[in-house]
C-alpha cells in the first residue's frame, strides 16, 4: 500500500513538473494563435533555441543557472521580434495552408541548423550543485531541480496572469483577442501589440525549453518530436485562453507520466486517443469559446 502511495505521489509530482513546463512553452502558442489566428507550428523551435542558449552559455562561459535562464528568455524573444517583423507579419492575412507550410519550413531549417551547430546528440545540462540533491517535504524526498522548476513556473504563470488580467497591456490583448477590428478602431496599435505579444510568447517558450531541458531533452529533432504535445495543450485547452491550456497541460503532464510509469508498453497511445475523444466532445477545447 505504502509502495503504491509513494509511486502515486511520485507520478503526480513528476507529472505536475512536466505539465508546468508544457504550459510555459505552450501558453505563448495559445495566445498568438488566439490573437493573430496564426498557426505557428514552429513554436517548438523557439523552445529548443532556449534550451541551446542555456546549455551553451553554461558550458562555454560558465554563467550561473538563473542568469542563463534569463538569457534564454531574452535571446529567444529578441530573435522572434525579427522573425515576426520580417516574415510572420507578411502572412497574417494569408490562408492557413500558407502559414502551416511556412512554419513547417522554419522547423526544417531549425532542425538542420541545430544539427550543424550542436550535433545530433542530446545536450547535457550542467546543473548547479544546489539543484542536484533532494529536498525533503512532509517526510518524502523530492528532486530539488523539479521543485525549483515548479516554483519558477508557478511564479512565471502568476506574473503572466496578473499581467493579462490586471494591466492595461493585458486589457488591450484581451480586447484584440475578442475583436481585433474593434480594438483597432478605438486606437489600439494592434500591430505593435502583436509583435510584443509574439515576443513574449516566444520568450516564454525559450524559457520553458531552457527550464525543462532536463525533462524534455534538447536535441535537434525537438521541434518535430514535441510539436504534437504543444498543439494538444493548445487545442484541448482552447485558443486564446490562459486557464484552458493550464488545465490541459497539467492533465497531459500527469496522465502522460502515469501512462509511461504504469503502462509503458502503450507509449503515448492513450494521450492521442484521449485527445481525439476530447476534441470530438468539445471541438473548441475545454475552455474555448465556440467559433
Amino acid at each position, binding site marked *: 500500500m505504502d509502495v503504491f502511495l509513494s509511486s502515486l505521489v511520485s507520478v503526480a509530482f513528476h507529472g505536475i513538473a512536466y505539465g508546468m513546463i508544457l504550459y510555459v512553452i505552450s501558453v505563448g502558442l495559445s495566445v498568438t494563435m488566439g490573437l493573430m489566428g496564426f498557426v505557428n507550428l514552429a513554436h517548438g523551435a523557439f523552445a529548443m533555441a532556449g534550451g541551446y542558449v542555456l546549455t551553451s552559455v553554461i558550458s562555454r562561459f560558465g554563467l550561473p543557472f538563473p542568469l542563463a535562464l534569463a538569457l534564454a528568455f531574452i535571446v529567444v524573444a529578441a530573435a522572434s521580434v525579427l522573425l515576426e517583423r520580417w516574415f510572420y507579419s*507578411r502572412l497574417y492575412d494569408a490562408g492557413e*495552408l500558407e502559414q502551416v507550410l511556412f512554419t513547417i519550413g522554419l522547423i*526544417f531549417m*531549425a532542425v538542420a541548423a541545430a544539427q550543424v551547430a550542436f550535433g545530433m546528440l542530446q545536450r547535457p545540462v550542467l546543473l548547479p550543485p544546489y539543484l542536484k540533491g533532494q529536498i525533503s517535504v512532509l517526510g518524502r524526498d523530492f528532486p530539488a531541480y523539479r521543485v525549483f522548476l515548479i516554483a519558477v513556473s508557478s511564479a512565471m504563470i502568476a506574473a503572466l496572469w496578473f499581467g493579462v488580467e490586471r494591466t492595461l497591456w493585458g486589457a488591450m490583448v484581451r480586447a484584440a483577442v475578442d475583436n481585433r477590428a474593434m480594438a483597432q478602431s478605438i486606437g489600439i496599435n494592434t500591430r505593435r501589440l502583436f509583435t510584443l505579444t509574439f515576443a513574449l510568447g516566444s520568450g516564454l517558450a525559450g524559457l520553458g525549453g531552457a527550464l525543462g531541458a532536463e525533462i524534455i531533452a534538447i536535441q535537434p529533432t525537438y521541434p518535430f518530436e514535441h510539436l504534437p504535445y504543444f498543439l494538444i495543450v493548445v487545442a484541448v485547452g482552447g485558443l486564446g485562453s490562459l486557464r484552458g491550456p493550464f488545465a490541459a497541460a497539467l492533465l497531459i503532464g500527469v496522465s502522460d507520466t502515469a501512462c509511461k510509469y504504469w503502462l509503458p508498453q502503450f507509449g503515448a497511445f492513450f494521450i492521442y486517443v484521449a485527445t481525439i475523444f476530447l*476534441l470530438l466532445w468539445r471541438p473548441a477545447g475545454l475552455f474555448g469559446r465556440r467559433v
Partner: protein
Amino acid sequence: MTRAVGYGADPRIRFAEWLPWLAAVAAFFLLPDYLPLGARILTYILFALSLDLILGYAGIITLGHSAFFGLGAYVAGILAAKLGVTDPLLLLAAAAGAAGALGIATGAVILRTHGLTQLMLTLAIAAVCLEIAHKATSVTGGADGLSGVAIAPIFGAFKFDLYGKTAYLWCLALLFAGWWVTRKMIYSPFGATLCGIRENIVRMHAIGVPVYRRLLTAYAVSAMLAGLAGALLAETNQFVGLNVLGFEPSGELMVMLILGGVGRLYGAFVGPLVYLIAQDFLAKQFPEYWYFGIGLMLVLVVLFARGGILGIADAIVARARRYV
C-alpha cells in the same frame, strides 16, 4: 487565381497531358539503372496525387495523410509476410479497402471540425497509427520494420525482378489508373463543388451543396489512393518500415506537393520527381544541408511563389506570350 484544370475547362485530355506518360515509358528504356528510383518516384506521385485531391481541390489541410499510406503499406505487408496472401492485386485491393475504411471513419469525424482542431485531429490520428505500428511488434515488426514480404508474380506471369523492371511498370500502370480516376473526378461537377467548397464554403452551403458529404467522399477516395500507394511501396520494396507513418512523412509529402504546385493535378507529378531525384543525389552527401534546403525552399515558395514549379512555369509562359 486561374487554374490550369477544373470544371468548365475542356474535359478532353490535351496533348501535353500525354507527355508525362511518354516520358515515363521513355525512361523505362533509356535509364535502366534508375528503375528502382523510378518506381519510388511513381509511388510517391500517386501518394501526392491523393493529397492534392483533398488539399489542393477540397482545401482540407491535413498533417496526417501518412496514416493512410502507412496503413496501406502495413496491410499489404502483414498480409504477405504473416498470412501468406501473395497475389499483388489482392494485396492492393485489401490495402485500398482498409485505407478507404479508415478514411471514412476518420473523415466522418474530422470533417465536422475546422481550423486548429482539424489540424490537431489529423495529426493525432496519424500519431495513434504510428504508436500502434511501433508497439505491436509481434505483428508489425516495430522499429525493426516488417521484412519477409513475399510477393507472387503479377497475374501469375510477371515476376518482380532484381532490376525493378516489373515493379516500375506495375507502379506506372497503377499511377495511370489513379490519375485517370482523379482527373475524371476533378473535371466533373463533383470536382467543381470541391473547388467551390475550398473557395467559399458558406456560399456552397447556401446554394444547397451537401458540403459534408462531398468532402467525405473526396476524403475517402483520397485515403484509398494513398493506401494504394502505400501497398505499392510495400510490394516493390518487399519491406515496410516505421518511416511510412507519422508527422514527418506527412510533412515531407506536403513539401513535395507544394514544390510542384498545389491544386493543379500535375504539380503532384513534378514535385515528387524533383524532390526525390534531388534527395537521391544530395541527401546522402549533405543530410543537414538537405533539410535546411527543404525548409528554405518551403519558406521561399510560400513567400514568393505560391504556385510552386508549375506556377513559375505558368508565369514565364504568360510573360513570353505577351512579347510574341
